[in-house]
């Protein structure tokens, strides 16, 4: 299975519930297209829920970084929610935990956009 991405609006924050694998090919491009679509519609507060993502390869990690940059360049923020242990390890190895704001709790993640 590749990736399933479902978006929902909570106030002025768009939550992307992601499920499956974000890898080179379809998964990465789906993620990129979703982020670009949100920014094009002016939705600049993005919380990516990775609770049901079981695999991200380096290409998928690159797309997350690209998404972070795309949203930031539009004046918004892309933050991460509910990382599995494996994805935490990947962010640790690549030092991207210094780039992304990460939340374990959705309410806290949503509230962080109001600060």
């Amino acid at each position, binding site marked *: 299975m590749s990736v399933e991405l479902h978006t929902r609006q909570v106030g002025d924050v768009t939550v992307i519930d992601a499920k499956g694998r974000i890898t*080179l*090919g379809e998964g990465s491009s789906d993620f990129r297209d979703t982020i670009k679509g949100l920014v094009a519609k002016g939705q600049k507060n993005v919380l990516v829920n990775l609770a049901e993502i079981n695999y991200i*390869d*380096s*290409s998928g*990690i*690159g*797309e997350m*970084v*690209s998404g*972070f*940059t795309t949203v930031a360049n539009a004046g918004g923020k892309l933050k991460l929610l509910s990382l599995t242990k*494996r994805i935490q*390890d*990947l962010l*640790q*190895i*690549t*030092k*991207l935990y*210094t*780039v992304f704001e990460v939340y374990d709790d959705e309410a806290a993640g949503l509230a962080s956009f109001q600060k």
Partner: protein
Amino acid sequence: MSAGDQSPKLVTDLVLASSLDSVDTAENRAVAAAERAGLPEEDVFRFGYAVREAMVNAVVHGNRYNANKTVAFRIWESATSIEVMIKDQGDGFNAASLADPLAEENLLCQSGRGLTLIRAFVDELRVMPADGGGTAAILRKNVKAGTTAPPKVSE
């Protein structure tokens, strides 16, 4: 394979197309080898992940999806280690010339993290020019059943 058998045995010897299907094949073969060796679940995942990244390098950056080029894929197993060799037919590259993806100024780059992740998940990675052109990557995972060491994180 007996516990005292230290000599590596070639268990997989494939010539794969330059495609993403081949990436899946390589990962699946590596995972199967790691499971046969009795590695803990997390090490099985990490070894498969590393082999997948190395195979992506061969298919995408080495052979550039060229249908006329192939990737040689071999696995050796012994009582003490699993070794995978992935050899492409690309133009070759100098690993030392790659930008450090962990440097502050490169953290927002979209690509360049593959080798860092591979190194974190295997005990040894060797990348060298291949005979006849292209690049060969050899990944070694030590077999110590029952324990999972944390991934190696650069300081």
